[in-house]
């Protein structure tokens, strides 16, 4: 069994607004191993991105706060670190790729300069060594002619190339954990496939554990080893990717998988889940999916289901599952 890099235990993150406490992440637990890609799937506003930001402790201040739980990275709880210690963790042990490659690069610096920033911050190398590291980071992301490319400005590059540069920045210090927040959403389908293959390569060479945040089950199938399905701030089902697709247990997972368009069913109307997710300000007492669930029982509306292991680390929170 490979080493666990990240262990999240009962993480609670809330936003304190004028209207009250918004429980964006409400008690989630998962782990990411070395060389593993863990997918976090769910619809918009279910707390995926907030989970990612919590892991970096970069929640928008002062509203966002981690109110409970543990985040154990490489054996220590990063919630106990000081701000300064946290800065030395960011970029070095844990890194993140943001969604939009067009805006995550600073327009006034060359890409080499931007990749060098993280290296200089964390490794204290001589200038010529930094350049070597920059080139090796660009190589890692398979950017052609890295020696000349590092002198380019972001606007001189294509979208796919920029997304690779963003990847190179994230990987420049060889972090143990990489958070990828919908990194493929802004790319078109062919580039998307290339990018996923590229990241699988990167993972093989660097052993990085990846937390992959997405709403796209197609990408999950290609990229992830295990998946957590998130709904309204909680993980309702966790399993290996093949189990999720073959034997989904939670009604929400089933509904989500059914709403993926399929080539062979061209004529049918696309399945969709009725209704809206509950407001995170005013959560129902029972299961959060109860209002939209096709198999809802009375118990579902009253009590929150506990997480049950149905075998091999396949965790489900549903009263229907025995």
């Amino acid at each position, binding site marked *: 069994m490979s080493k666990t890099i990240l262990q999240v235990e009962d993480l609670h993150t809330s936003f304190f607004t004028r209207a009250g406490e918004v429980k964006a992440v409400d008690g989630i637990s998962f782990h990411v191993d070395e060389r593993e890609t863990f997918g976090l799937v769910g619809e918009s506003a279910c707390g995926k991105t907030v989970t990612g930001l919590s892991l970096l402790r970069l929640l928008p201040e002062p509203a966002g706060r981690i109110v409970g739980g543990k985040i154990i990275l490489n054996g220590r709880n990063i919630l106990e670190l000081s701000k300064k210690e946290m800065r030395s963790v960011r970029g070095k042990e844990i890194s993140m790729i*943001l969604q939009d490659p067009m805006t995550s690069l600073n*327009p006034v610096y060359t890409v080499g300069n931007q990749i060098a920033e993280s290296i200089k911050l964390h490794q204290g190398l001589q200038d010529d060594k930094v350049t070597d590291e920059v080139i090796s980071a660009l190589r890692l992301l398979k950017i052609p002619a890295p020696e000349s490319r590092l002198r380019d400005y972001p606007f001189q590059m294509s979208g796919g190339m920029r997304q690779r540069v963003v990847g190179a920045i994230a990987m420049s210090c060889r972090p143990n954990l990489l958070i990828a927040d919908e990194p493929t959403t802004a790319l078109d389908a062919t580039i998307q496939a290339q990018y996923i293959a590229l990241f699988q390569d990167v993972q093989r060479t660097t052993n990085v554990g990846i937390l992959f945040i997405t709403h796209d089950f197609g990408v999950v199938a290609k990229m992830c080893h295990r998946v957590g399905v998130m709904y309204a701030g909680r993980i309702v089902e966790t399993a290996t990717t093949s189990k999720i697709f073959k034997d989904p247990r939670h009604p929400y997972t089933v509904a989500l998988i059914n709403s993926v368009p399929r080539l062979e069913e061209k004529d049918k109307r696309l399945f969709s889940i009725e209704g809206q997710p509950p407001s995170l300000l005013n959560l129902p007492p029972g299961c959060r999916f109860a209002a939209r669930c096709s198999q809802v029982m009375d118990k579902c509306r009253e009590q929150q289901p506990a997480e049950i292991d149905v075998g091999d680390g396949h965790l489900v929170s549903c009263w229907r599952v025995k």
Partner: protein
Amino acid sequence: MPDTTEEKPKKKFTGLPLRARVIRKLSLIIPLIIMFLVVIMAVFADLSWLGLPNVRLSPHDPDDVVIRDRFLPPAFMDGGKSEYLLGTDKLGRDVLSRIIYGSRISLSISALVISITACIGTVLGIFAGYAGGRIDGFIMRVTDVALSFPGLLMAMLLAVAIQPGYWTVVFALSILGWAPYARLLRGEALKIRDSDFVAQARVCGASPWRIMLRHIFPNVINSLVVMITLSVGMVILAEAVLSFLGIGVPAPTASWGSMVNDGRGYLDTAWWISAFPGIAIGLVVMSGNFLGDWLRDKLDPRLRQL
């Protein structure tokens, strides 16, 4: 496959003919020339700063009083003497020489005031925009007060309270002048703070200071440069107004504003005493504004690729 079609005569696109292009760019070329000339005037009025007090651009000493030559009209008018190209004032001092020396006061004061105000305003603006919350609120309320205070009144108050002089003018114009910079850059910093590349820098472990200096500042330089060009005119004008009111740089030192004031009583008999320094002020202020407009168009962030 090689192209076998008959080679067309190459028609190189050169755009408009040279004359038309020059005319289109006149609003840039003329202000540039004026600014250049004024700087040359200020620098080479005399070369005493190089240890050569006798090498000078100005035909006379600006403070040389020649009672015999009082109120002489410009050389191109009847009764003008060729040695006083733009005439003389009530004490027989050469107007041209005084304009040349006056440019030193105008330029150095505006350079000083702009450096001071731009620095203070930039630091406060970026800090407020990045920090947000209460710090932002506090800095911006102070800025609001500074903006709403009539600047000229404040400067007059100071000039009266302390004694009038070169440094008093610099101080008086700086004490409120930083506010527009702070206001502008705070907005810019606020916008950039929430951009993805700043988030990316945070993810890489950059400290707040590093983000302000390395990521926000280089992205607001454009706005800053435009603001600086536009305020050249305003500061020169403000200095002239203070000097005109007699609370600027004290006599006999020549400054454009005080020269206009000197000639005020003789407008009907010796208009040139006021008119020429007035024209100088007008030209420089206008040049500053034209250059600022041009820079603003050139550096428009919407034209830059993000």
